[in-house]
């Protein structure tokens, strides 16, 4: 009975014998429509915010885009620019509606980039910049051959020589000072013990630089006068100046910052207190005050009759300033390391410098990468402050260009260009730090 019933049911009912192919989901539940519903119109408040944002974007772009896109690239002065605009787009109707005059960038490109650097020597800063990139490449990307680190070590001296020119013996002998320090650590440890060697490795090169380098340069130069045309610091300007101050500050402040951070973590009372005082005093006062100190007061603290270049003073101040910030960042990294790492290093019988170099600092620096890079970004941005003490950085040049009758009254084109250049540099630095963080993330979470 039941069988019969089921048979008739089977006959009359429709039974599928194979699977249907998968179908695309309804249009509202997938693809762009779904995305828009989820991300832009998920609630009434969200929809209002979306529409408001779109309106803001529209207003801003409608105001700026035509101004940028229709900009004029070939003119000799602002008035010429205006004439071209009149000829091309007709007279202005009442308010606004002008176009950008990008011609100022073409006209003053050399100044914005190199300042008063002699035009026939432009190849030298360009070559120095390429060398700089080549020098930092193996530091930034560890896939490159390690031999390139030799270039990194030589890069500061070659770049210095290329930029300022003069006798080749100055950078060679300064580099020799570092060589002496390295040799003392390497070979002196065997004879006088690790600590004495370390102390000597600090003191001997300093004495060498202060007392011997000056006479030696003259002596060597009289024997073998090798050199290129020298360029004065006051001829530097524009982005060249910003790059030189920024890069020197970054390179020099890193080791100083590490030493200060170690000093602040140290158990030795005097070293600790001096580090703390130095860091707090430097950080408590704005950079601009330090720059004025460099300009007005540094002369008082130097031996009578000595007078050194404003740009070198600025680099010294920027380095000291930035190293205090770097020290605080690295101190955070040192403090974040578990106690066991220090104890582990001790139990292996490593001495202080070995344990720092092999165990503590690599980890602390890895933790502090974001902070260090943001200090560097801040340092690079702060190079604009040198305009206040009479150096011609890009902002200083924008003022100087405006003071010229040709370009009197031009604002936005210069601001946008300078801002864009800084943005590109700083933004790429911050992206690099994020890449580095991801690459070094070895923790198992």
């Amino acid at each position, binding site marked *: 009975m039941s069988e019969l019933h089921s048979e008739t049911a089977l006959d009359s009912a429709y039974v599928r014998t194979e699977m249907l192919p998968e179908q695309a989901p309804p249009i509202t539940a997938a693809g762009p429509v779904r995305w828009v519903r989820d991300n832009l119109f*998920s609630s009434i408040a*969200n929809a209002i915010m979306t529409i408001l*944002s779109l309106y803001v974007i529209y207003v801003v772009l409608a105001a700026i885009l035509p101004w940028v896109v229709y900009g004029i690239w070939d003119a000799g002065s602002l008035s010429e620019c205006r004439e071209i605009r009149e000829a091309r787009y007709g007279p202005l109707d009442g308010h606004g509606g002008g176009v950008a005059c990008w011609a100022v960038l073409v006209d003053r490109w050399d100044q914005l980039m190199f300042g008063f650097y002699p035009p026939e020597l432009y190849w030298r800063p360009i070559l120095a910049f390429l060398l700089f990139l080549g020098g930092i490449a193996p530091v930034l990307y560890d896939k490159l051959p390690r031999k390139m680190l030799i270039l990194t070590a030589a890069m500061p001296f070659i770049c210095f020589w290329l930029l300022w020119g003069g006798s080749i013996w100055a950078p060679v002998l300064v580099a020799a000072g570092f060589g002496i320090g390295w040799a003392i650590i390497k070979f002196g440890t065997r004879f006088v013990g690790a600590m004495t060697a370390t102390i000597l490795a600090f003191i001997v090169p300093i004495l060498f630089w202060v007392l011997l380098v000056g006479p030696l340069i003259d002596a060597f130069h009289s024997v073998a006068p090798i050199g290129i045309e020298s360029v004065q610091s006051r001829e530097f300007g524009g982005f060249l100046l910003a790059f030189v101050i920024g890069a020197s500050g970054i390179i020099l402040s890193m080791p100083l910052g590490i030493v200060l951070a170690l000093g602040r973590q140290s158990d030795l009372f*005097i070293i600790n207190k001096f580090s703390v005082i130095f860091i707090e005093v430097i950080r408590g006062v704005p950079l601009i005050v330090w720059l004025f100190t460099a300009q007005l007061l540094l002369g008082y603290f*130097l031996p009578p009759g000595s007078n050194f270049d404003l740009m070198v003073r600025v680099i010294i101040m920027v380095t000291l300033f930035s190293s205090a910030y770097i020290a605080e960042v690295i101190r955070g990294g040192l403090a974040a390391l578990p106690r066991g790492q220090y104890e582990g290093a001790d139990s292996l019988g490593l001495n202080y410098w070995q344990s720092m170099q092999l165990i503590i600092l690599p980890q602390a620096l890895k933790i502090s990468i974001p902070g260090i890079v943001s200090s560097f970004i801040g340092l690079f941005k702060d190079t604009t402050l040198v305009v206040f003490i009479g150096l011609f950085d890009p*902002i200083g040049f924008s003022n100087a260009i405006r003071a010229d009758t040709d370009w009197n009254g031009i*604002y936005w084109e210069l601001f946008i260009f300078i801002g864009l250049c800084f943005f590109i540099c700083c933004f790429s630095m911050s992206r690099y730090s994020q890449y580095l963080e991801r690459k070094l993330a070895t923790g198992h979470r």
Partner: protein
Amino acid sequence: MATLSDPPAESFRLSQLIYDTRYRSLTIQVIVFILIMLGLWELVSNAIQNLSALGKDFDFSFLGNRAGYDINQRLIEYSNDSTHGRAAVVGILNTLLVAFLGCVTATILGVIAGVLRLSNNWIVGRLMTVYVEGFRNIPLLLWIIVIFAIMTEGMPQPRDFRGDEPEASMILGDSVAVTNRGVYIPNLVFTRSLGGNEMSEAADGVEAAIVPSVSGADWTLILVVLALGIAASIFIGRWGAAKQERTGVRPPGLFWMRAGAIVIPVAIVLIVLGATLDYPELTGFNFSGGVHLRNALIALWFALSLYTGAFIAEIVRAGILSVSKGQTEASAALGMRPSWTMNLVILPQALRVIIPPLISQYLNLTKNSSLALAVGYMDVRSTLGGITINQTGRELEGMLLLGGFYLITSLVISAVMNVYNNSVKLQER
């Protein structure tokens, strides 16, 4: 029974200074100390020698001399007959004013941008990213100059407001005028002032005119009452918390009681003093009346707020992200309302992460206010560190005082904020 004998008396050898860890740290410290002192001595003796060669001495009496220059924006009485010391105080107050205004606005902007950046609305999130990255990666100095240029180049002149069909008009019900000389906003004046400025008598149907004058007594009174109100509010809060601890019931209307304790006394004082608003008015070639916010102040204030706000936004975002999702879920599981979850669970934990970097942002903003130089705002660097130094030639003393002021301000801000930080930090065993 074992006999204990003294260990052989060790004679001190000179080599122990280097090889014995007990003495080695001493040796290092003594050497470092001597080196640093030698360096300092070198600097100081050079300075003494150089100063005497220039025929300058080291004293601060120039602070008592007549300054002889004008300061366009001042919070206290000052004229060019006042002393350099008073000029420095005017500058300090101007610095503190812009720092305070900047910190408040930057916090508001930063919190809004930080929260919106986490919004599930894609386009709003991206907009906030553009804001944050744009302001973080371009020098502050450029922003200050740009905003100053917008204010001076882009805004209408006062004469555009004149006529029957003016080209420009005042905003917010004819109370605020935005011109290329600055922004004019209504001023709070007191008709029954303690300082004695009187409402001039209305004569023959002519409207009474208020003669606004700077009266410190009124504002002191208001600030004192405000401070007392805040203290009372804190007291009520403590009382409410104690009662809740004891009985388990939160006293009803606690929020309104606390708000009333602050608002009501101040409102009473304002009414007693006869506070009215003095609106800016176009007279002659310029606006008169009201408060004139100069372009320099506006540019500095906005640029500092927008710039620091971008950094604060990142701090707030990191703080909120640092609270694990499990906390939200747990409080939902306990049946808490979303607003309670935010106030009682998320925010207290996020604040712990937010406060320390926030402190350093406030410090940065205060120090960055020294960029006032770019737009001619008369802060302490422009008065004490600028004109005064130029006029008296006292670079060393002036820079010392200037540095000292910034240092003390920084240390005070960080000390105050650290006390707060300690009160919200995680209580660990």
